[in-house]
């Protein structure tokens, strides 16, 4: 836990969790509606 209180580590860990979480939200919420979130990148 002490390592996590290091600001740099905390920012990196937080970024990984947050970015991963929001990308998952975007992907699955679109998929749930039968839509493709990555539409533009597949063109």
């Amino acid at each position, binding site marked *: *836990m002490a390592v*996590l*209180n290091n600001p740099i580590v905390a*920012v990196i*860990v937080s970024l990984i969790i*947050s970015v991963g*979480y*929001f990308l998952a939200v975007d992907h699955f*919420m*679109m998929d749930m509606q039968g839509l493709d979130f990555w539409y533009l990148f597949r063109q």
Partner: protein
Amino acid sequence: MGRVIGKRLFSIMALCAMVGLLLLPIVVALPSLALGEEATAGGAKKEGATVEKGRDVYYKTEGVVVGAPAPKTTDGPKDYPRYNFESRVLLWFANQQHLYYGSFVLAVPIFCMIIEFMGVVTKDKALAKRYDQLAYDFIKISLTAYSLTAVLGGILIFTFLTLYPAFFSYLSSVFRPVMHIYALMFVAESGTLYIYYYGWDKMKEGFLKWIHLSMSVVLNIIGTLLMFLANSWIGFMMSPAGVDEQGRYLGNIWHVIHTALWNPLNLHRILGNMAFGGGVVAAYAAYKFLAAKTDEDRAHYDWMGYIAMALGVAFLIPLPFAGYWLMREVYAYRQQMGITLMGGLLAWLFIIQATMIGILFLSTNYYLWQAMGRMRGAEKYQRYIKYLVFLLACGYMVFITPHTMVMTPAELKAMGGQQHPVLGNYGVMSAKNGGINVIITTTVLSFVWYMRGNKVSTVSWAKFGNIFMGVFFTCAYFNIIGLAVYGYYIPANVRVGLSVPQVTTTLSCLFFMFALNSMMMKGAKQMGPIEWGKISARSQYALIMLATAFTWMMGLMGYIRSSVRLFWHVNEIMRDNSPWAYTHTVGFAANMISANVLFFWISILFVFWLGSLTAKKAPAEVKVAVPGSVPQPVGSH
């Protein structure tokens, strides 16, 4: 001992009476519904081969025709008797006032239930007493309003009978199987409310308090069912079901009630009522705060205003999402109806609606920032508020930008089209979804700051928690805005789905960050107590602004929902042939809504004044009960 048992017995009997009142309409309805079925079946047997069948306009099922067709009205004294005035305006006024008061008296008991429950489960006895007094204050306000609601309901029925007899007769004939249930529900609601209110003092401790709390649950179930039934009428008028194309009732009352828009309307109205009720009580508290002569009173009403505002906003936050669901169902039911609402005749009213929603959130944020002033330690957030103002202002400006402008031909020519080359880009749903989600996320952030204003976290992972919270909010903003921008680069059929991840992002901030904040603030070090009453007068005007904006917006949305039927009493079933079957100008509608809002606030001030008369009679008793209590309110009623 005998007295205690007697009281218990009395309380249980009162609760049973309430449950009995709740079940009474259903029990009374059962034989009549059964009789109705028998009558239909008997009638069918008698008629033999001449039984006529119809096809449900919505469910597409076949049923035996049991009702008369919708009347084909003509403009004249028979179908549209009138005074020398526009009948629609009179009905609009009666309907709107009844709805305002109805919403208020249905919302306040829900607040009472929540606050009373908080009082029961709170271990701090002084705080429990305060919650209990607050719940009592709430119900006291709603009691006078309740009588007025009933009076306005009566006026509404007379207005219908006098000015629109043909339409009212048709609607009541379709809903005949449940009309008496509605009336009985109303009786049950009244009986329950009075037992709940007058039993407060008799059941204030221990087991009896739980019985009293259970009564509030029964009261709210009745109130909610009552509202659902009333919603089924407007649902039927917008998206009829259970009748054939001539409007003949096909014998299935559930189909008539459970129309395409019934459930979205139910959810939207419950949330709307709660937000509105919270706003009105907060305005009441603000008014009492501004008029208070002592510090004790100021402390009490400051606290009351905060609780009412917090409850109101808690229901305001999911309200736009419920609105999206309603609109989605409208589009699914009739695409043309959705286009009339959002992209056609009524689209400008949605710009006004967006403006009002923005004002609601701006007022809430402003109040919270002001409220931080009564906490020692909250100064550390003051310097960041300007960034929140920036985010809110950007979100708000995008949210209220219209797609096209109203212009003179010269202006049109100068601009090269109806769309502004830059601002026109913000007038689309992709940008607007981004705008409102930024506004709501910022409000969540303001709430988080407020909740931790005078506290310093003492958990070992506090530093990580703070950084994580900051990063999570930043990523949420990037995600919301990123999705809004992404929407410009993909086709409309894919873009339409982006609102769901945007909403999920906002709700993630709400639930996860509130939970994280609560975990971090467990056992936190307090920088000082919240000094209730030490808040600027400006904050109280923000509460009044909040309540007025709620009232205005409710009037506006009611008008939009009603006028989308255009020239139909019952959409595609019964045509409105009165001379007023046209859509008013935006200016006229706005004036009418303002007049309704003004009347409501003048009349509710009268209700508040009546409430203060009973309070003035009580002080001798009150002072004896809790002498010299500082922010704590009295313990007796």
